[in-house]
């Protein structure tokens, strides 16, 4: 009986929390955007969320591309197929690694920061104070951060993939001696704009929605104490990483299985 009650309680509280999260997101997004006041806020958040994540994304991208090239080369050279290094690297990056690794890094770098910032604004009564000033904190605080995350992540994923391919070129062509012409041309013949690049971007948009939403909700819904904020920040990283991996499997199954 106790077990059943615990299960029921947990289920109900999960649903309640999902409901609150949906209400928060709809409250933030379902309104007439005010471009005059909204644009500077959005630009500031694009800077905080997007530009500030550039360095970690580019460095990780470069190294992941280089490692992929190194590993791929040692396997492919055994079959005399080192010319296929280009498509190997490009396809794995565009379809999987680009969107997924970017989302994971983004959750750690920007997601946790969003949660902590909003949680702290809640703890220091800044959100309440906005409400008492007749300004909706969902529109003023949550909405620009959401859009910034939603716009930034696909851009970051594109940058990640591009830098990683350059890194792979560096190792594969300049160091290991794969022919530059065949590196690019075989890559081009194998990579399709719609199938690979667009699908990768769709993935990225979905991950952006998930990660930003989780981060904002965890901050907005946290217990406004230092312990509550630290718990919320951890949960943001853990939950959004797991959600990204789960949705990645689903999306891959839908997009690339036929």
């Amino acid at each position, binding site marked *: 009986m106790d077990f059943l009650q615990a299960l029921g309680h947990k289920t109900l509280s999960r649903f309640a929390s999902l409901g609150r999260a949906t209400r928060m997101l709809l409250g933030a997004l379902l309104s007439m955007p005010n471009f005059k*006041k909204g644009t500077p806020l959005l630009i500031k958040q694009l800077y905080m969320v997007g530009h500030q994540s550039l360095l970690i994304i580019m460095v990780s991208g470069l190294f992941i591309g280089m490692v992929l090239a190194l590993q791929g080369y040692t396997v492919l050279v055994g079959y005399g197929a080192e010319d296929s290094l280009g498509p190997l690297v490009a396809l794995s990056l565009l379809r999987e690694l680009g969107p997924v690794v970017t989302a994971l890094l983004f959750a750690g770098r920007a997601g946790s920061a969003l949660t902590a910032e909003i949680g*702290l*604004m809640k703890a*220091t*009564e*800044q959100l*309440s*104070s906005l*409400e*008492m*000033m*007749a*300004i*909706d904190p969902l529109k003023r605080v949550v909405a620009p951060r959401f859009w910034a995350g939603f716009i930034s992540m696909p851009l970051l994923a594109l940058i990640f993939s591009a830098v990683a391919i350059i890194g792979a070129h560096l190792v594969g062509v300049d160091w290991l001696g794969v022919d530059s012409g065949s590196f690019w041309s075989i890559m081009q013949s194998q990579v399709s704009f719609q199938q690979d690049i667009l699908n990768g971007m769709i993935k990225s948009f979905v991950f952006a929605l998930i990660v930003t939403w989780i981060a904002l909700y965890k901050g907005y819904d946290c217990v406004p104490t230092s312990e509550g904020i630290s718990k919320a920040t951890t949960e943001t990283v853990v939950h959004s990483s797991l959600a990204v991996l789960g949705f990645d499997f689903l999306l891959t199954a839908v997009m690339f299985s036929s």
Partner: protein
Amino acid sequence: MIYKLVNQNVERDLSQSIIEIKDVTFSRGDRTIYKNMSFSVPKGKITAIMGPSGIGKTTMLRLIGGQLKPDSGDITFEGQSVPGMTRAELYEARTKMSMLFQSGALFTDMSVFDNIAFPLREHTQLSEELIRLVVLMKLQAVGLRGARDLMPSELSGGMARRAALARSIALDPELIMYDEPFAGQDPISMGVLVRLIKSLNQVLGLSSLIVTHDVTEVLSIADHVVIIAEQGVIGTGTPEQMLQHSSPLVQQFLKGLSDGPVPFHFKAAPYEDELLLGAQQ
């Protein structure tokens, strides 16, 4: 009009109330915080709500601000029912009231100047030049004109509260609610705040509602006192009336006695029993 009111007698003023709490019951979870509570806040006066900590004084302010809804009963602001307002009406009403939070709640990512300009920029169409003038006037009123370019993190606790006070009067509200304005202040800042609250009330002709448990400070400026304990109002009146009040609970609170109707000891089993029980084990 308001200046005239100040000079009229207290009974007449009480009929002119800006906020009416009527028969309000509010509970959080299983815990009832208020039960059938009623009182009113007169217009153009300083009203103090006092009571021991943990009886939900801040909750009272949130109820008035419409952030929480009572389980039953009604709260009116200028004759309009706050729980019954639509969202738009509520936001409209909130532009006429403002609240000074315990922590000040200054926006940490803006300078003091921008913090005070913030409500003006959001709610008015004033030009930047006019906003600058208004902000400087408000800062002058709280004595922080020189600190306008500092960030909130560079201010001391008392200065932060004064800056927040300047922000809450930026839109010339009709009501200011102070949530524990004196908590954690040194005697000098406390004196400054007491003087500011009194002078703002007189100069701007607004109504003030102070939630506090700093008895001496608030009794020196309040026109009207409401003491809350045990889920309801236990006494109202002028400070003089309150000091003469017959209720032992009011007396214990005002005089700060450690034991009385509010016992020193938290509810527990008899002391001897518990000691002996420990020895047996």
